[in-house]
């Protein structure tokens, strides 16, 4: 049997009976997704590695008692990851800033340096705003934009209906846009103050 082309249910059943190779196949299928999810929730590669390892060790420990309940296996893994990330944030709550690794920002080859800088500044600002969103909204954005999952799939993972996901997504975008507008207004105010200051200096 080629485990790369497996039927998930069958492999899952084997893994639940203690088949290490079957669990390994599940691991290979989901390690990237879980890593991505944790990385975008923590903003740190070392923490993402540590928490990803914990997710899969916890899954291995409890897979014998796993009950699908009509949900995909990934939903269970994401739930474990979500809980571990929540604990991580609680333990690191005194840290003032979420670290942003270099790999988070992307240089587009061929761009002039100033365009690249502008883009990275905007993305950095956007990521900071995303990190300030409630955890469920962050999870929704990661599953939608990093994993490219549909609303139905996201609903299965997050335990909500498709309609609830659509509504949450809309509210998330509205909140993000409001935050961006506030920042823009503050920047514009600063700029006008600087211009006024320069005018006074010239007049003097």
């Amino acid at each position, binding site marked *: 049997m080629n485990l790369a082309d497996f039927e998930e249910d069958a492999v899952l059943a084997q893994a639940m009976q203690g088949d290490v190779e079957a669990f*390994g196949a599940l691991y290979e299928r989901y*390690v990237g997704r879980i890593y991505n999810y944790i990385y975008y929730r923590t903003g740190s590669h070392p923490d993402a590695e540590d928490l990803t390892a914990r997710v899969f060790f916890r899954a291995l420990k409890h897979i014998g008692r796993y009950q699908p309940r009509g949900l995909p296996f990934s939903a269970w893994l994401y739930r474990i990851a979500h809980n571990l990330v929540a604990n991580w944030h609680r333990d690191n709550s005194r840290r003032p800033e979420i670290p942003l690794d270099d790999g988070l920002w992307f240089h587009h080859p061929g761009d002039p340096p100033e365009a690249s800088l502008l883009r990275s500044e905007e993305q950095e600002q956007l990521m900071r705003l995303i990190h300030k969103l409630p955890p469920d909204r962050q999870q929704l954005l990661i599953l939608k934009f990093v994993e490219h999952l549909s609303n139905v799939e996201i609903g299965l993972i997050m335990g909500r209906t498709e309609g609830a996901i659509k509504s949450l997504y809309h509210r998330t975008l509205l909140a*993000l846009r409001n935050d961006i507008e506030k920042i*823009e207004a503050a920047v514009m105010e600063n700029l006008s103050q600087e211009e006024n200051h320069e005018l006074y200096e010239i007049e003097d």
Partner: protein
Amino acid sequence: MKSRIEQPARSGGKPQFDSLEAHLSSALQPVAPRPTFVQTLGQRLSSAPSVAVEIHPAAGRDWQLMLIAAAGVLSGVALIWLVKAFVLAYRRSKNLT
């Protein structure tokens, strides 16, 4: 500076998020974990025991509590027996005299 992230736009009363979605799509790109990390973790998982016997943290405490309770009951019974024996012995000695 005027950010290019999002300009409010409305179409038919509904807000449009195309620009914001494009920026989110650009910012939230998949990242690949280090291959050595994936490989090492896979090896660690395959060598880990697949069945783990979990001992409830309270289980040890339950045994200790039961032991303390049993010892308490036994010492109480022993104390009552001793007091009774003392009283009996005292009465007997009094009757004899």
